[in-house]
């Protein structure tokens, strides 16, 4: 199961910065902190390291740490049903 620590690690790797450690889980990182290419790299990392596949229509909704965790939880639940 994807954890908050995993998401922050992927963000740190993407930005090559520790700044994401200080972000509130509801912080909208698409509002200036990550551009579209950073965001794509972040999601690619989640897919390759944690197996979280995100269809293109869902990409823009994953704009905070909490949104990513809730999405991963739903994806895991759907997989289990």
């Amino acid at each position, binding site marked *: 199961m994807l954890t908050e620590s995993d998401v922050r690690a992927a963000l740190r790797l993407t930005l090559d910065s520790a700044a994401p450690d200080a972000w509130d889980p509801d912080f909208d990182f698409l509002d200036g902190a990550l*551009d*579209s*290419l950073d965001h*794509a*790299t972040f*999601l690619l990392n989640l897919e390759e390291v944690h197996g979280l596949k995100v269809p*293109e229509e869902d990409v823009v909704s994953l704009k905070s740490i909490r949104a990513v965790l809730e999405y991963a939880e739903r994806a895991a639940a759907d997989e289990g049903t």
Partner: protein
Amino acid sequence: MTSRVRIVDCVAHVPAGRLDLLEMAERFDTDAKFLRQKTGYTAVARMDASETASGLAEAAVRRAFEAHPGLVGRVKLLVLITQNPDGYGLPHASAILHGRLGLGDDVAAFDVSLGCSGWVYGLSIATSFMDANHIDSGLLITADPYSPVLDPDDRNTQLLFGDAAAVTVLERGAPGWSAGRFLFGTDGTAWRSLMVDEERRLRMNGHGIFVFSAKRVPACIAETLSANGIAMVDVDRVLVHQGSRYIVETIGKRLGAPDKTPFVANDVGNTVSSSIPLILSSGLCDGDGRIVVCGFGVGLSWAATVLTRIDDQQ
């Protein structure tokens, strides 16, 4: 069997016109820092509105003829890579080019409809055609001007694509670059990712293209090295299609070879199938002995091979 057809030179023609992207950034409400650091382009080349693919190609070929005396009489093949040919694509732009150059009627000329993978595909096609038909001298030309199909209000494409042409001079048994085994691939399920729509405007799914590039290209290059019996340590440089600085740097990192994977298209833009021969024409690889080349994009399509420098007339 390895072909004795070699790349003896690459000659570029980049139109003088430039769209200054740092000026355009304000109009498109785009951060200039994003342009410099991510797309990597500070300007993109723009041909005159009246210019055509065959016109760009002609300028490049005439430069090649000036640089290689006697070539004009030896050339028996024109392969033109374009998806934006003159007029409506009939006749083929390579025939128009043939006429503009005043070449003889014993010259084969045909177009190949491919985008950013086109130069690598074209190298295999031209080399094979020359071997099969005992042709000693041929020209592989890339001229795919995107400016006529760009939406003036679409920053994703306006600030990315540039117009240019390049000619790759191929001669049998001459010193130059020799191609090894090629690898090709296609993912036609994603053809909508980069397409011209019903209004003749280019549409690009930037996210999809980036993910495709980051995942597919490093794997393709690794397979190509393996198919040629070599490893990354054996190549001096990795020339990938110059889709954007971020894509090139991402590929370099994922290959574990960032220092071998240059981005050098900052003042011309993404010139589609011309981006790799433009690097070769710049002299950047003149001291190299072996390089790997990979083109990728429209289709989605990709192709790669290894080029080894042969210094004598084998």
